[in-house]
């Protein structure tokens, strides 16, 4: 890729090229950090064994009768999206952790848009999520769950949007919760609750009452539904698996992601400046 780099009088990049380079730099830092921390790499590979094999496998063997669709495949898609969501939002808390070494200061002082910093951090922490997805796919192979190449590509194609959606939601939490410790805790616990509420492993077709309301409040519910709509397109199970109209879901995800990102970034930047 060769871009004619626009530079200003001081020989530095300007405008969009500079922002793009900044995002790339921050993403690259995220990837570098991933490789430098073997512990988190190992965890990202062990997680799928616990989630997919132990929780999912047990549900499949003991409780998945009479659903009207193949539970294994249903759960695999759910787990993949769940991994993208959990890992990305956990990685985002690095923005908070960096504060301890004042590295966030160093990033915030750079002459680039706050959005570039946030998007770079989100995509950088999404890198670890890819490992978890690969791990999940490997475990699912051992469990005899199959997905064809087209379906896999569909999940892959949607994954950047899933990561951004997760990151935007995480940013909103970081911005809304004033206390840093509490914000960090929220960012750990909410994805966990989301996993159960949004239908990642347990179908929510028959949810009612509080659980129904909560499920509709979780952004991951819509992300999951969109991915399933694409994966199950044209299959007889579609009606039993997919809850909403995919076009509406897609629009809603894009809209909410943009709003969450804008509000979250604004709030975080403001609380950073107004001490």
């Amino acid at each position, binding site marked *: 890729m060769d871009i004619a780099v626009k530079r200003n009088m001081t020989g530095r990049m*300007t405008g969009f090229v500079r922002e793009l*380079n900044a995002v790339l730099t921050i993403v690259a830092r995220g990837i*570098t950090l991933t490789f430098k921390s073997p512990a988190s790499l190992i965890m990202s590979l062990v997680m799928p064994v616990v989630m997919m094999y132990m929780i999912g496998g047990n549900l499949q063997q003991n409780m998945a009768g009479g659903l009207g669709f193949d539970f294994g495949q249903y759960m695999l898609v759910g787990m993949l999206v769940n991994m993208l969501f959990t890992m990305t939002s956990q990685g985002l808390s690095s923005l908070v952790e960096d504060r301890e070494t004042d*590295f966030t200061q160093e990033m915030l002082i750079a002459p680039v848009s706050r959005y570039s910093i946030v998007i770079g951090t989100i995509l950088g922490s999404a890198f670890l999520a890819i490992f978890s997805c690969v791990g999940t796919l490997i475990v699912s192979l051992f469990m005899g769950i199959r997905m064809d190449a087209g379906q896999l590509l569909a999940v892959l194609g949607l994954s950047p949007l899933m990561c951004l959606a997760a990151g935007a939601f995480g940013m909103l939490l970081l911005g809304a919760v004033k206390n840093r410790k509490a914000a960090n805790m929220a960012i750990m616990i909410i994805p966990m609750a989301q996993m159960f509420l949004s239908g990642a492993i347990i179908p929510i077709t028959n949810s009612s009452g509080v659980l129904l309301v909560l499920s509709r409040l979780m952004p991951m519910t819509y992300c999951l539904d969109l991915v399933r709509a694409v994966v199950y397109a044209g299959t007889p199970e579609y009606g039993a698996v997919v809850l909403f109209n995919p076009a509406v879901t897609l629009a809603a995800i894009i809209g909410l992601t943009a709003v969450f990102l804008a509000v979250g970034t604004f709030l975080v930047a403001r609380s950073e400046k107004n001490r």
Partner: protein
Amino acid sequence: MNAILEVRELVKRYNKARSNAVDGVSFSVSEGEFFAFLGPNGAGKTTTISILTTTLAPTSGEVKIAGCDVIRQAKEVRDKVGIIFQQPSLDPQLSAEENIRFHACLYGVYGYRPTFRMMPKAYRERVMELAELVGIADAMFKPIKKLSGGMQRKLEIIRSLIHTPKILFLDEPTTGLDAVSRRGLWEYINQSRRENGTTVFLTTHYIDEAESVDKVCIINHGKLAACCSPGELKRTLEYDPAPKVCLPTLEQAYIEYLSKTERGAA
């Protein structure tokens, strides 16, 4: 000469604080000037610098850097300043060189490449030259955790100058450095001043470092106590409180001035 930095009636009161940390401060710094901002612990130096470099919002007042307003044109301002924070701000998980590369790319000086070798020649030469100059060439590829405190400080100084800022803020840059390193560091900063005309805004508790500055402002309890050249500051104290045989050093003048104003205020 053109003022590169103008501060007018700057006030900062931290959330839930009972008094102003910075209390109606006004001064200006000319382009290319070497400026010292001195004051005792808790005087409001770091607070002022944080506002000037856009990381902290002022309560009231106006600040302009190279004609840009720090609130409304924060990005333009950030483009023109370099800073060494009082608190170390390196990424401890990256290597020394990666920290520099990250900074240079974030500022749009170079396009990002995943390894040092793949970076443009100009970058590689510049980094190694600077590392040589401050004497940390051997440590450039070590993780930050394995660098001593002084070495980390030197690295931050290289980092702050790699994008050739118009104005460089140094918040106690030499704390923890040995005498030789301090000397080397000042040579490097002076070199950058000569070559690029960088304006330097210094706070320090080693008053001798400010001996050769063009202008010194003393801040105490958030208020400016004096703003003049070091020579003028010394001369105001020549016969006061007691006649002296020769002019005092800046450090003596500074301490006397502070104690005098402190007594006057009480």
